[in-house]
């Protein structure tokens, strides 16, 4: 048994060691699992807290098992505000992310396939956006949105999210599109396809892996965004989840089970996306740093 496992994993010519590998192997798993347990403990503590009833907190500490599992915490957190925040975050993410990816894909297409003077410089210009600290933009954006009467509006925030998502998205899309053979594009043009057709029917479909990676990354980033939401959203009914959670923290500062339940609800969509699309994380990122 250990021979088979060891053989498969070392995958090299050093089989003589394989028989003795069983003990290091077990030590490896034990060490890794212990570390993993410590690493993920905060999430367990969170879920644990969310499942306790308020009276459980009075007696019994963190380690005490819940006397009975209190599912009602989730319903209550949902009713006292999370529902609104959740809806706002979902709306924002579902509208902003596809729009942002499309705009970035169009720009990346032009930068990759069209013969434009200075397209390289323009790409570098877009990349600068990756390193600008958000603090550098806050005051002018406040003035801008105030003038447009878009403070405290999800619609106003939408434009900001769109702008801040572009540099990374353009970099990833362009990195990927460069792997698409030019000949495909030229052949289509000769066959009478327009540039818009080339984009829509050839380049965009071929870029699906990059598009999916971006939808996930940008989706998570949008779902999680805090500082802009905090500055530009005021009314409770406009708040997104990250902002709503902080608000919850002050409003129900001692209802720990409610706070934890609210935080769990926030995490659920992330977990779902993560479980389904995990492989895109490494693939998507390696595409963006190695060209």
């Amino acid at each position: 048994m250990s021979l088979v496992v060891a053989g498969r994993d070392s995958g090299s010519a050093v089989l003589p060691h394989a028989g003795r590998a069983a003990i290091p192997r077990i030590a490896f798993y034990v060490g890794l699992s212990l570390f993993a347990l410590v690493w993920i403990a905060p999430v367990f503590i969170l879920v644990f807290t969310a499942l306790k009833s308020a009276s459980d907190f009075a007696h019994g500490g963190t380690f005490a098992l819940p006397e009975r599992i209190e599912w009602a915490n989730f319903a209550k957190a949902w009713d006292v505000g999370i529902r609104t925040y959740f809806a706002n975050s979902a709306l924002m993410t579902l509208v902003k992310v596809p729009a942002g990816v499309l705009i970035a894909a169009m720009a990346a297409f032009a930068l990759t396939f069209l013969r434009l003077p200075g397209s390289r410089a323009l790409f570098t210009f877009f990349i600068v956006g990756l390193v600008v600290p958000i603090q550098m933009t806050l005051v002018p954006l406040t003035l801008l949105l105030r003038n447009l009467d878009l403070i405290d509006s999800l619609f106003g925030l939408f434009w900001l999210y769109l702008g801040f998502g572009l540099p990374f998205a353009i970099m990833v899309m362009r990195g990927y599109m460069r792997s698409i053979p030019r000949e495909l594009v030229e052949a289509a043009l000769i066959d009478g396809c327009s540039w818009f057709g080339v984009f829509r029917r050839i380049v965009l479909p071929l870029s699906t892996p990059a598009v999916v990676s971006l939808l996930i990354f940008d989706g998570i980033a949008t779902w999680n965004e805090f500082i802009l939401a905090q500055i530009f959203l005021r009314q409770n009914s406009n708040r997104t989840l990250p902002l709503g959670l902080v608000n919850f923290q002050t409003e129900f500062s001692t209802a720990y089970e409610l706070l934890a339940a609210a935080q769990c609800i926030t995490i659920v969509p992330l977990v779902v996306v993560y479980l389904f699309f995990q492989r895109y994380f490494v693939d998507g990122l390696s595409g963006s740093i190695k060209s």
Partner: protein
Amino acid sequence: MSLGGADTAAATPAAGRGGSNPLRTEWRIGALFLAPALLLYVTIIIYPLIYSSWLSLFEWDGISPTRRFVGLDNYATLWSQNRVFWIALKNSALWTAVALVVPTSIGLGLALLLNRSFAGRGFYRGLFYFPAILSLSLCGLIWTWIYHPTLGFLNQFLGWVGLESLHRAWLSEPSIALFAVMVAAGWHNTGLPMLLYLAGLQTIPREVLEAAEVDGATAFQRFRHVTWPMLKDTTFVVLAITFINSLKVYDVVYVMTFGGPANQTQVLGTWMYFLTYNFNRIGLGTAIAVVLFGLTLIFAIPYTRKLGQES
């Protein structure tokens, strides 16, 4: 959209009507494709970037119609009169130094471990990366609960193993609060280096490592002389991203300590916010943003240059 028909004919390379015509059409089409992105990007990032620098030369409360030009006075004020600015600068420097070493090293270590092939590798990768998909503000809230003086896991655990003497009010003691916040941030910030290093490790050819092994190199020697040099590019990207993100850190501090106790955990990102939005000192706030951006450039310039060149 109406352009569609016209382009088709002109853009056909074989059309050969003088040669300059298709190029000009391409230029116009390119402009159409680029317009939305460029317009948004310039309005949301570039124009504010320049306008902020300009505003840092004024004294203004953000509301009154007039603002007074004061030159570099705001910077002088920060330098000589704003005690909290120095605390924030020191904390940001400390934060950045720790961030460059600790989460990155753990990320590298995990990547090396999880790059070996063994049953359950995908599960462990997913588990260790997981905190990175949570927002920093949420990580802050989760750890705030762990640090709770009486009900929090940390103090209860210390009591359980008989180390009551180590009990602390983790987030309200000035000497440890910043480090307590760093732990929460590090929990979130380890995933990205791990992922980048995993991607980097995949570019190292197996044969090279095997050759070294056949030659009798120990595991450490293989890492020291083969793997580590070949990860140079990845390390640069990891350090650049870490540096840039560390300087602008805001949410996790805001959520966990609100800059307190007594401003002891202010960093540049939070102090910029408080000066601007709580004290209406627009000039001072934007001046901090400019300082922050200036520091960012230490890594940002080589980083953007590298990204530009790779293309």
